């Protein structure tokens, strides 16, 4: 074994971590190398001197002083706060988000429900089909005479005898007790009354009047020869839509 290589192995030799083959080679080298024997001896003495150092003794009050210092520095409180925050991220934060979402949903539902509650629950209305503008007017007049209301969907009630224009649909609200009168008025006009609907919570019967003008019926906004015959020419037609076609 080379001297340089032997020098490098001295430490492992002392530690007894050399493999048997290397150990044998080194021991052979040591027998003939005074320098390596001297180094080995010095190394052993050094390690022996280190080994004789007594274990360091921690000061007897180390633990107590550390505890005091930890409390004074708020170590445990800080740690708990941090732990709580970190633990909240996966569990409690998710719960908080979930609760907020549920809360929001509940508020939304309550809002919608409250809006629904303000409107009286409705039964299906009766449906009356009319085919001309005249019939529309007759239906409306019948409703007004019976004490009911005439509405164009999405608008306030039309005042009695006011022009209706040419709405696609009307809604009639007939008081329950006035239904026979409304029924009779319709029959008198030659219209077939619809079946009596169930009254709503406010005691009114609803009739939806769907207007399906026939091809030969007068077009809304145009002069109806039948109705204009007994009306002065210079008087505006109360049933024609206002300028612009809007009401």
């Amino acid at each position: 074994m080379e001297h340089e290589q032997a020098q490098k192995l001295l430490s492992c030799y002392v530690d007894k971590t050399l493999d048997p083959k290397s150990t044998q080679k080194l021991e052979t080298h040591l027998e003939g190398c005074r320098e390596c024997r001297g180094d080995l001896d010095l190394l052993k003495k050094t390690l022996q001197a280190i080994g004789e150092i007594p274990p360091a003794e921690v000061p007897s009050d180390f633990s107590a002083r550390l505890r005091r210092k930890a409390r004074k520095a708020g170590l445990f409180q800080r740690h708990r706060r941090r732990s709580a925050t970190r633990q909240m991220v996966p569990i409690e934060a998710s719960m908080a988000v979930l609760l907020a979402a549920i809360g929001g949903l509940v508020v939304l539902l309550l809002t919608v429900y409250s809006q629904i509650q303000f409107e009286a629950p409705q039964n299906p209305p009766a449906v009356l089909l009319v085919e001309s503008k005249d019939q529309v007017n007759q239906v409306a007049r019948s409703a007004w005479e019976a004490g009911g209301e005439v509405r164009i969907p999405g608008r306030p009630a039309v005042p009695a005898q006011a022009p209706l224009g040419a709405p696609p649909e009307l809604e009639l609200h007939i008081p329950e007790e006035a239904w026979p009168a409304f029924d009779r008025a319709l029959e008198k006009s030659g219209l077939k009354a619809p079946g009596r609907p169930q009254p709503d919570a406010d005691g009114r019967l609803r009739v939806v009047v769907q207007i399906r003008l026939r091809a030969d019926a007068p077009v809304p906004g145009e002069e109806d020869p039948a109705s204009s015959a007994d009306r002065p020419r210079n008087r505006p037609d109360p049933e024609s839509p206002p300028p612009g076609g809007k009401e």
Partner: protein
Amino acid sequence: MLPDKVSDSSSLLERSLVRALKRGDPKAFERMVCLHQNRVFSLCLRMLGNTQEAEDLAQEVFFTVFTSIRTFREESLLSTWIYRITRNHCLNRLKFLRRRVHDKKQSLDHTRPADLTDRNARVPRPDHLAEGKEMEAIVQEQINALTEEHRELIVLRDIEHLSYDEIQSITDLPGGTVKSRLHRARMELARRMAPYLSDK
């Protein structure tokens, strides 16, 4: 079978301690300090060579362990992890002290009136060597004179008697590097110790 059982049981105890530490349990902190204070303090003392510095640093080590225990992934023993933190703290403190001493144009040894090397401010003659404390002071002084990378290996292996595997884990050095560097450190220390050991 017995060693396995003992190992399993100590592993269970350690896991339980780590869990309690992660919960921030003050009693677990005390238990951890009780279990590791001697070795942490010893490592600090041998690395720094000063009792007061070692005590202060050991306290910092335990604070760090407690506040960063959540980052401990339990891939090594708790003791190895604590040693790694201790070693890093020691190296940082040595850098700080070296800077401070350098700024004051003083040697590190002269700034420690009450430390282990204090008794060796005078160089004792080999024939005046006493046993025990005096030799301890000489060894410590010569260890202090080593470079930090040599010093830490002498302390971990020859004073704390850690295995090569543990040393690798603590220092992040490859096994071959640990062995070759330790050899150089030992030979350097032996050369320094030679005047005091020649008549032994």
